[in-house]
């Protein structure tokens, strides 16, 4: 049994999965025994639902101040 983070890593690394059909991804998710709700979120390409299922809040993303650098 895998988990969805390992599955996402595998999707990102595997040329056969990265742009695969829904059927292929669905089969891979079933083979990896991913939990049904997470499987549904992956198949729906719904990162917000997946983050919510795993308890993640939105993260701050910017690493540079808009406009000008003050050092």
């Amino acid at each position, binding site marked *: 049994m895998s988990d969805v*983070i390992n599955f*996402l*890593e*595998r*999707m*990102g*690394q595997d040329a056969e*999965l*990265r742009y695969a059909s829904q059927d292929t991804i669905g089969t891979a998710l079933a083979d990896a025994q991913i939990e049904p709700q997470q499987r549904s979120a*992956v198949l729906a*390409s*719904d*990162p917000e639902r*997946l*983050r919510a299922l*795993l308890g*993640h*809040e*939105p*993260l*701050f*993303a*910017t*690493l*540079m*101040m*808009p*406009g*000008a*650098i*003050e*050092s």
Partner: protein
Amino acid sequence: MNTQPSAGSLVCVGIGITLGSHISPLARSHIETADMVFVAVSDGLVEQWVQRMHPDVRSLQPFYQTGKPRMQTYRQMVEAMLTEVRAGKRVCGVFYGHPGVFAWAPHKAIETARAEGYRAHMEPGISAEDCLYADLGIDPGTRGCLHFEASQLMYYRRRLDPSAWLVLWQIGITGDHGKNRFATNAAYLQVLVDVLARDYPLEHEVIVYRAATLPIHLPRIERTSLARMPHLALDAADTLAIPPAAPMEPDPEMRARLAALDLARADPVGT
């Protein structure tokens, strides 16, 4: 006199944009072999992925707070990493994309560590810019490509060249000059449109772009006109790509000089 570097060290690595797809073997090795790891990424799923690569991964997210001066956040990130370097640890800072592109803290941390006598360096990663070239089919070598931080284009008078591509980063926080709202609105974006309208027609096509953070979705590629751009929903990860609006202007004087040089090379003895 002891000239040996101090025991602590710092490496800042980029893990690329898309989870699993972009991390380099060297970046992963730095993460796995460090004494401790700090992480600043844009997605909780990506942070969870990085946490599996090392038993001591500390998120830099708690330093962010809405309303807190952004530079204070970035300085605290630097200090958190440097504190462990000074304690003799081999520290790895993990950043999304490229750690040296639109990222203040990694540059500052490396500069500070070196100034204090510690070994410090940066390993590049695949940036959002790299993804943009691939996803939009742009080769910056064909027409040239200017890049600006979007707000900087409003705070300063910059010279644009509408015969080249123009890419504006952090469009989704336009006008947020250190106020840490982490958002923008149509009024701020209209100011940016007015700046761009000095060089581009309002009906000119622009492209809102966002690279794929997870392998389960596709990049955002949304085409609209410059005039309509302020009415789109944007977030901090969105970028504005503006195609060339004018042909490249030939320079007859320089062409003549180059032609003369060609002639001189063809007839080196001047006969």
